[in-house]
């Protein structure tokens, strides 16, 4: 690993100033489970590494049924799924947080870091997309918001400019008769990168028979995590039946434009996008019905 300078600011202002004023490349260290590997393997370089885990608002994890969830960008995954109310209110998020690497990884890795690493296969991003999460970005010019589905722009790239930090991920309060789920496919049962992943959120009619609204996010089937807009819109007003989920899966399959690599063939990934969309919709509906 090439050497670098290190800073551990205790305020957002200090951090953004450090990043904006840095000579050469400055990198943000949240959980470090991606960054440290990338620096070691020379996939990324850094002249300055800024540890943001000492910044209070980035470690914030606050939930209320009125205000929803504020998830600091550096909050490690384990704190999410261990939080009883969050697991109930945003099950897709908890599903994803529980399978990011193993326990040792979840002790460090954060959802914010997963977003900023911007891998097409990131497990938490489809869940954020499905849940309609907003990304609050802090920079020299102040704060701005970006919807989760617009955050990643290409493999390993995102909307952050020099000096900007992803500060908080904001989730609207859960609405009644809604439910969500995230599932991925991996060859093993743990410690793999998703071959494909799908996150689904649904809001049902009060009688539980009809899907009023739905959002589907997909992983590892496109250059970035994908909001399956067509499938999501098509679902609105459809009856909550296996047939519907199957059909939505076909839309998801169409939305997918995967590649072949050592983790799976394009053909297999496209197929999985359909299967996982169907399965997560069924689970989301089941959860919506409580």
């Amino acid at each position, binding site marked *: 690993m090439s050497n670098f300078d290190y800073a551990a600011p205790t305020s957002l202002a200090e951090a953004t100033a450090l990043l904006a004023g840095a000579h050469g490349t400055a990198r943000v260290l949240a959980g470090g489970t991606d960054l*440290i590997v990338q620096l070691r393997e020379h996939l990324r370089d850094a002249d300055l590494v800024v540890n943001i885990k000492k910044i209070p608002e980035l470690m914030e994890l606050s939930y209320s049924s009125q205000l929803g969830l504020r998830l600091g960008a550096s909050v490690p995954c384990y704190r999410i799924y261990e939080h009883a109310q969050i697991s109930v209110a945003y099950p897709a998020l908890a599903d994803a947080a529980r399978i990011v690497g193993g326990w*040792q990884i979840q002790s460090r890795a954060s959802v914010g870091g997963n977003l900023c690493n911007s891998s097409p296969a990131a497990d938490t991003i489809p869940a954020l997309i499905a849940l309609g999460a907003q990304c609050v970005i802090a920079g020299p010019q102040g704060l701005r918001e970006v919807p989760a589905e617009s955050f990643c722009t290409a493999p390993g790239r995102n909307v952050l400019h020099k000096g900007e930090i992803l500060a908080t991920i904001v989730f609207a309060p859960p609405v009644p008769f809604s439910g969500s789920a995230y599932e991925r496919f991996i060859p093993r049962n743990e410690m793999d990168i998703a071959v494909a992943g799908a996150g689904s959120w649904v809001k049902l009619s009060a009688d539980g028979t009809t899907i009023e609204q739905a959002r589907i996010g997909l992983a590892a089937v496109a250059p970035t995590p994908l909001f399956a807009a067509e499938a999501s819109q098509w679902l609105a007003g459809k009856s909550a039946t296996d047939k519907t989920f199957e059909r939505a899966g076909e839309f998801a399959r169409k939305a997918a434009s995967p590649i072949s690599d050592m983790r799976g063939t394009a053909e297999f990934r496209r197929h999985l996008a359909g299967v996982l969309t169907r399965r997560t919709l069924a689970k989301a509906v089941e959860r919506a019905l409580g």
Partner: protein
Amino acid sequence: MSKKVHVTTSVNHEPVEFLCEPRQSLLEVLRDTLRLTGAKEGCNNGNCGACTVIFSGVPVNSCLVLAVEAEGATVETVEGLADHGHLHPIQKCFLEGAALQCGVCTPGFLVAAKALLDHNPDPTEHDIRFGLANNLCRCTGYDKIVKAVQAAARELQSLAK
């Protein structure tokens, strides 16, 4: 080359200070600077768990922690598991259950298992397999490791009573 950083931390409940370069991992400093070689380097990218330590209360891969991050933190390694010459029940159960062969993954498993049982004193077989899935073993096929953790859970519970 950026200059070394002074770090004040706690290792196995004792205050420790060291100097390190920012690029040095906690694993590297534990092994090469502090000479605590119990934590092993199996992959150096977080996929084998042989370097597992408990960092401020949670299990982490010490190869994916910068040593400078240890400032103000607490670190528990396999060297801190036995208590004044008395093996921890998990260590005892690993020995009695022949849960190790080559032994190189063992420190990581022991530390991860301790974290698991501290967190969940009465785990199911699935809880144990899920909790230890970040730790690779190539010798045992895991059978005797899982059984040793089950035995340790029983022993710890009876001690607690």
